[in-house]
């Protein structure tokens, strides 16, 4: 998106080290917080009037396609900063990806922050800078926002919500119900990195591993994919619940079965190690920069080549096929020569004790 350069203006500043309830009171302290932290980082012509709503010219939208894509997501990650990202980058990439997997060009974001009293202003500035950086890199703009401050204990430091607006290119039609027997199931890289990185970063497991979150905005990768394989049936980012959950949802929505091969499923050695020690299955680990793609067999080669030619898809692979078996069933052929059912997760994935 090409927004004109922003005329410089004097923004208010916060002069205390940490957020107090006064910063949520609607008065000068709140204005200082919003301007110092968020407006300073996000400034652009659609945001800068600071009206109660962003006003977006329709022609800006219509030039990109024929349908509006609209999505929202809240971010409550703990810890706020982790190897490979932080809550700010996550809140931008996650919402961009939710737009992009529907075939949309992501354009505008909102940012709502719920802040616990006592949070350091420096941390908020860091998070806002990280959001701005990720948004600028992806060519999207924050055009509206909100902050609330709550009592200590009413939330855990900082919760973010971002809502995204994008426009779906004319002719692009993707859906979980469109998978057909014979289609190939692709992923764009190693699975479970984000979930494992967060587990290790929490530090309560005393595990040491240098695993970085895969957190990344995938809209450019998806554009390249859709250009190379216009018949693509379906794309989904494999966030909470991991690839296993996406596959189950696809199998159910399309009334097909899916078979994947353990030996073809790319999982980093250290992620496998973390999962093994905790008795967890990396197929259920969250990803923040990985997609599951279903393409018809005649476009598999083109889709794979397009993914591999992008830095965020270098390790793309076909991990399985859509089959004509029992509808809704996902089966994994194990390296060991057996096979097992990969079911939906019940509740949280809990570690085993013996």
């Amino acid at each position, binding site marked *: 998106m090409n927004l004109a350069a922003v005329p410089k203006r004097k923004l208010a500043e916060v002069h205390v080290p940490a957020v107090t309830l006064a910063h949520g009171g609607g008065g000068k302290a709140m204005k200082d917080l919003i301007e110092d932290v968020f407006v300073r980082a996000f400034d652009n012509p659609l945001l800068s009037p600071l009206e109660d709503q962003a006003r977006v010219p329709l022609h800006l939208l219509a030039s990109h396609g024929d349908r509006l894509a609209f999505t929202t997501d809240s971010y409550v990650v703990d810890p706020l900063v982790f190897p490979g990202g932080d809550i700010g980058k996550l809140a931008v990439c996650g919402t961009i990806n939710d737009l992009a997997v529907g075939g949309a060009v992501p354009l505008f974001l909102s940012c709502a922050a719920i802040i616990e009293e006592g949070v350091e202003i420096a941390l908020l500035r860091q998070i806002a800078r990280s959001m701005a950086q990720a948004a600028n890199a992806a060519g999207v703009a924050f055009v509206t926002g909100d902050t609330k401050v709550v009592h200590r204990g009413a939330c855990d430091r900082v919760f973010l919500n971002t809502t995204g607006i994008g426009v779906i290119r004319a002719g692009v039609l993707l859906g979980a119900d469109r998978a057909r027997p014979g289609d190939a199931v692709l992923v764009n890289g190693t699975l479970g990195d984000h979930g494992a990185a967060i587990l290790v970063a929490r530090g309560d497991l005393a595990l040491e591993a240098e695993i970085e979150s895969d957190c990344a905005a995938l809209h450019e990768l998806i554009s390249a994919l859709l250009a190379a394989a216009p018949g693509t049936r379906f794309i989904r980012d494999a966030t909470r619940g991991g690839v296993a959950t996406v596959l189950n949802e696809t199998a159910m929505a399309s009334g097909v079965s899916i078979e994947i091969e353990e030996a073809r499923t790319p999982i980093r050695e250290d992620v496998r190690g973390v999962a093994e020690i905790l008795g967890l299955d990396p197929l259920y680990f969250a990803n923040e920069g990985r997609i599951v793609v279903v393409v018809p067999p005649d476009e598999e080669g083109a889709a794979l080549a397009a993914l591999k030619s992008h830095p965020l898809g270098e390790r793309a692979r076909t991990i399985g096929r859509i089959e004509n078996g029992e509808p809704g069933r996902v089966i994994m052929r194990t390296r*060991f020569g057996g096979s*097992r059912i990969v079911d939906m997760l019940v509740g949280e994935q809990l570690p085993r004790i013996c």
Partner: protein
Amino acid sequence: MKFADEFRDPAKADALVKDIARLARQIPATKQRPLNIMEVCGGHTHSIFRYGIEAMLPKEIELVHGPGCPVCVLPMGRIDDCIAIAELREVIFTTFGDAMRVPGSKKSLLQAKADGCDIRMVYSPMDALALARNNPDREVVFFAIGFETTMPSTALTVLAAEREGVRNFSLFCNHITIVPTIKAILDSPGLLIDGFLGPGHVSMVTGLLPYRFIADYYRRPVVVAGFEPLDILQSLQMVLKQIAHGRCEVENQYRRVVPDDGNDSALAAVGRVYELREFFEWRGLGSIDHSGVRMRGNYARFDAERKFAVPNVRIADPKSCQCGEVLKGAIKPWQCKVFGTACTPETPLGALMVSSEGACAAYYQYGGVRGPKCSTEAAA
């Protein structure tokens, strides 16, 4: 992955399966009925399903999934007791994750947490002790469950608390011991178990001696087994060799972890802190003599049962539940009246549906609701 992939080699598995089939055909009894081999430990049950081992075995071998999942055999009343402790204002109740979803008579710990109890999941009893150190104005209670596998770690935590003079830490002791339960199973009428895969992690602490009576008195082979798929296949092969050669011995397949004589210092810590209870109630199996431990009088101040007014509720298992028959190997999970209908991993009635090591949850998750047929089809 080093030290794991070596034990999951498909070519070696294939060779073992072929030899198991050859041995099974040599044993005359298999002409009348399949051989029933019980894996005692829930960890084995989990591996068997995860790697699809049942579907690889010849029809002459049936695996019976035993009572060795401590979460599964925990009676509902004990969960109610946990919640009663957790509801005390001063208490931070700590537990391993598996126990969070086990249904009590009214609710699970997960639901009690949502209702406002301070319940926290920890990965080690030492984490609970650290919580006690950091919260001197609160009472930290650790829900101690498990067989001899976890007993040394809770005993050592109590000894550490004693050494450091921590006064606000206690255990709610629900440790159980596997041997009296194996004996109770062997004594149940009409039972057809031809051999056992012995528990690997328990034996790492206890050694092989406690299983001698199974071989000497009940004349059944026992092979203490590891948890990787090749460990399990090799252990089955060892059991079959014993049967084929008319031997009844306790053998150790899991030598890389299990010393024949067990771990002396672990046993010493356990002996210092715990003593046998007269009896302990097992879900599905009822009360079994000497099958649980409690804390010795010297450690009463670390014993949540003495420190708090624990209601000690006894709740009968739901009538429709057939966990007991499944645990004894009398029926297969999918033959239970409520399997996959009233009882599912989302809404478990019986404890075997709660933990991923429970035979029912394992069948449901990895084998499908229609029983093992499905996994055989999948492997075909």
